Each structure stands twice: as C-alpha cells, then as structure tokens.
C-alpha cells in the first residue's frame, strides 16, 4: 500500500507561541487556528468532513474531538484523538491521508495546541485517581525529571559510545537560534553562541538549560485534502509523498538501545514510499525537544552514519542559508513548545517552505522536506516526506 500523492496539506495556521497562558483557553486557541487553516486552504467549514485532534498535555478531557466539532459547528464523518506525544502531528498527517484514500472523507482538519505555561505545567496535578502503570511503580520512585532526565540519559550514553561532545550538541541550539532570528513568531530570537549554551546552567547532565524546551502557550492546525480537491486549493499543495511510523515502550530502561530510536524504522518507510533518499532532501524539519534528539534523529533517518551525528551537525550549516537547512522556524528550542503543537510546528514549517512563503528564512528551491515527529523519550516516531 502507498499513500504517495493520495492527499496534500493545503492550509495551515499557527499561533505565535506565548510565555503566558493568561486569558486563553485551549478550545479557544484550537478554534482560532482551525478557522485560519480552513481559510488558508480556501475551504468552507462544511467542507471539513474529518477531524483529528492532538490532546493537550495539561488537561485530561474525554471526547475532545466532539468538544471541538461542536465549537466549530462542523460535523465530521471521521473524528479521532491522535496521541503519539510529540509525534502526533506527523501521525495525524498520514492518518488523514489514509482516511482520505479509503474514501472515508475528503478534507481532514488536524488540530493541536494548548493554553499552558511554566506555572500551569509544573503545578501539582489535581488529586485524581492514578492508573497503576509500571512507569509509576518502577521509575517514578527514583525521581526522574520528566522527559528531561530520559533525554539526558540518551545523551550521556551517546557520548560514551560515540565520543559526542557538548559543543557538538550545542551547535544544534545555536544554528536553530539563528533561524529563529528570521522568524518574527519565535519566542527566543536573540543570537546565541556555543559558549553561551555551555555556560547556561546544567539541569540534567550533560544537558544545559538552552538545550531544553520550555512549556508555553500556542496552537497550530493544518488541513489535509484529497488529490481531487488539492489542485483547486488557494495555496500550493504540499503533497504527502511518504510516511512511516514506529513505536517502542515509554520507559527507557525497557528499550534495547537508548542511542538508536524507532526513527531507524519509520524514516526508511517514508523515504521508500516517496522514492527518495536523504541526499535529495531540501529541508529537514525534525522534532527537537532537546539538542540530542536532533542528533539521534539525523543518524537514524540516514543523513549520516550511526554515531556520526555529532561531527555531522558540527560540519554542516543548519541555518536557512546553510547547506543543510534544519528547523528553519527555530525549532521548538527557540520557536517554543506549546504542548503537542510543538510537533506540529515541524509540519507547518515544511508546508510553508514548500509553498514558498517562509519570508526572510525561505530556503531557495525547496521542493522536498523530511519531517519527523517524536513522542515520549524517543518512543513514538512518525516520519513524513512532503513535496511539490
């Protein structure tokens, strides 16, 4: 089975991330970006017959798609939650294409984001009943620092196995900050140096403050339409050319190797479906909750050999002007991580670049993008190839 050119992303909308959630609601943010994406695609609300939602991290509510459908007064024939953590957006994109290909619907609205900030993110959770999960029994008693400590453990082992250095990891944050400088919507835009990254506080060895995302408020939506609808879109269609997904467990102590992620399975599936290889790619738009995430993803997707990610990011210019443009919106590290909409930012940026409307940071002749969504501690992976 192939999804190649079965569907295209035609409309996108994204809220500029904000440090504070003051005065905003998740449903209100979703409505705004949904409206924007439908308008951008040149569609009417009644055209939307599919709805996929990536739930907010900070607020557990049942039946989110029904709440949003009601709010938008749309009546999808296909509605679902997609929760693959940060891989949800890329996961929604190919699920939408799959539903379209099977004839379930023709225009799927994919929505993410939340009203969140540092205060609400770290506030003690309400006293709600907790499920008996192995993670809670065998990991939580030892004081993990959320996802931070897991990615730090990946980085520590990567350094041990391959000699990866702190300076190499820091280079990812530095180049992405240069990109954010050309993105008026990014949360952090001031130039950054490798030395500044390495002299920012150590939070979880070997990761420093500037190598770690921060929670914020924001949202993003995109519309995936069928091949027959795509040509009449208001914008250049960004075609889904390839997709692949792979998952593993949520607890790092349970995985075979912490330095190899399921990207090693999901990316080859996406490249094979698209009939292209990493050397053909004009834009790399990959999940970057931490600097190490980018290095491991580049290796496992085949942009360089396993273990060679450190020297690779050091040798290549990852800015929008460079030889390997990567996370040209600034990545989540500089643009911001508004819940699962952080992972949507890699999809929207790829669409923007393919449509030629990335403004100052536009990559010349950007025809082919590799997108990777990543959830958990590199446990869920969804890879896409998008193109003209």
């Amino acid at each position, binding site marked *: 089975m192939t999804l190649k050119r079965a569907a295209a992303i035609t409309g996108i909308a994204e809220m500029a991330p904000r440090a504070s959630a003051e005065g905003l609601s998740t449903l209100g943010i979703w409505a705004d970006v949904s409206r924007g994406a439908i308008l951008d695609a040149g569609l009417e609300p009644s055209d939307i017959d599919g709805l996929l939602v990536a739930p907010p991290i900070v607020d557990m509510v049942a039946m989110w798609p029904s709440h949003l459908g009601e709010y938008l007064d749309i009546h999808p024939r296909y509605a679902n939650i997609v929760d693959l953590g940060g891989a949800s957006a890329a996961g929604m994109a190919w699920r939408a294409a799959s539903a379209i290909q099977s004839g379930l619907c023709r225009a799927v609205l994919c929505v993410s984001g939340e009203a969140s900030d540092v205060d609400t993110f*770290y506030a003690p959770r309400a006293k709600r009943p907790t499920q008996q999960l192995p993670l809670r029994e065998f990991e939580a008693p030892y004081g993990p620092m959320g996802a931070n400590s897991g990615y730090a453990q990946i980085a520590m082992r990567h350094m041990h196995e391959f000699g990866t250095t702190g300076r190499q990891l820091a280079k990812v944050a530095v180049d992405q900050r240069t990109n954010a400088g050309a993105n008026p919507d990014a949360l952090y835009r001031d130039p950054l140096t490798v030395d500044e990254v390495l002299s920012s506080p150590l939070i979880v060895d070997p990761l420093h403050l500037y190598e770690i995302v921060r929670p914020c408020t924001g949202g993003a939506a995109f519309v995936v339409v069928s091949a027959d609808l795509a040509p009449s879109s208001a914008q250049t269609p960004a075609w889904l050319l390839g997709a692949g997904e792979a998952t593993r467990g949520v607890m790092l102590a349970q995985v075979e190797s912490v330095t190899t992620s399921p990207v090693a399975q999901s990316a080859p599936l996406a490249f094979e479906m698209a009939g292209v290889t990493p050397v053909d790619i004009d834009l790399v738009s990959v999940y970057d909750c931490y600097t190490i995430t980018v290095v491991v993803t580049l290796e496992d997707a085949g942009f360089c050999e396993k273990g060679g990610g450190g020297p690779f990011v050091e040798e290549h210019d990852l800015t929008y002007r460079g030889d390997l443009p990567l996370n040209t919106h600034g990545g989540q590290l500089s643009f911001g991580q508004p819940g699962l909409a952080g992972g949507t930012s890699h999809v929207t940026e790829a669409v923007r670049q393919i449509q030629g409307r990335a403004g100052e940071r536009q990559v010349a002749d950007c025809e082919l993008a590799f997108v990777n969504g990543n959830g958990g501690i590199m446990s869920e992976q969804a890879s896409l190839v998008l193109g003209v």
Partner: protein
Amino acid sequence: MSDQPRKPLPRPSPLSQPFWDGLAAGELRLQRCAACDAYVFYPRPHCPHCLSEALKWTRVSGRGRVYTYTVVRRAMHPAFRPDVPYVFAIVELEEGPRVATNVIGCSPEDVRVEMPVKALYDRTAAGIALLKFEPA
C-alpha cells in the same frame, strides 16, 4: 509539616508483590521464564518473549553496570528538591534486564557509564524498600 510533599512510592500489585517483598528481605528477585529461560523485568503475567505463563521468582546477584545516567540538578517533583544533585540511572543487571534506579554512596561527579555497581535495599519511612545501587 503535614502538607510536606511526599515522594511517590510504589504501589505493589499482587503480581509485583514478590519483587517488593524480596527487596524488603534484602534480596533482589526477578521473574524467570521456565520455558525459555529469559529473565523478565518488570513483573508481568506472562513471558513477553514466548508467552509462557510459567514464570518463577528467582534470586539474582544484584551485580550490574551503569548503562547510562544523569545528574538531576533541578528536581521536577517537589519532594526530591532537598536531594539535588542526585544520580538517576539505568543499571544493567548481570542477568540482562535493566532497571531505573539511583546510584548512591559516592559523589554524583564520580559516576561513570559502565561503572560496576551492586544492589542495596533502601528502606523508606513507609516500610517499602527501594532498589538502589552503590559502587561495587
């Protein structure tokens, strides 16, 4: 002091009780599959490798190596704030399985990947003992 944040403690299930009982008795017990000999951790109702339900609790050595670790310098959970900096690690047991744990009994700065460690049983105020490790 009653609203002092408390550390999350394991809530043993009937399935996992023998593991926690073992730690309280000062020994490390893992499930082992009678059909395929695989060690199984965490406790499960069947062997994930061969689906056999013939899992037997077996005492193991408690020896292992640090597979990877981090030093937590800012705690997420308020109850861990007095402990920083502390080592949150994954130890690979001699018998194969890996466990999330803390390495104690040395400075965080002295921990290394592949360092040999041995189990110790850290009894909490609530009576349950946690599996931790110290340099071997």
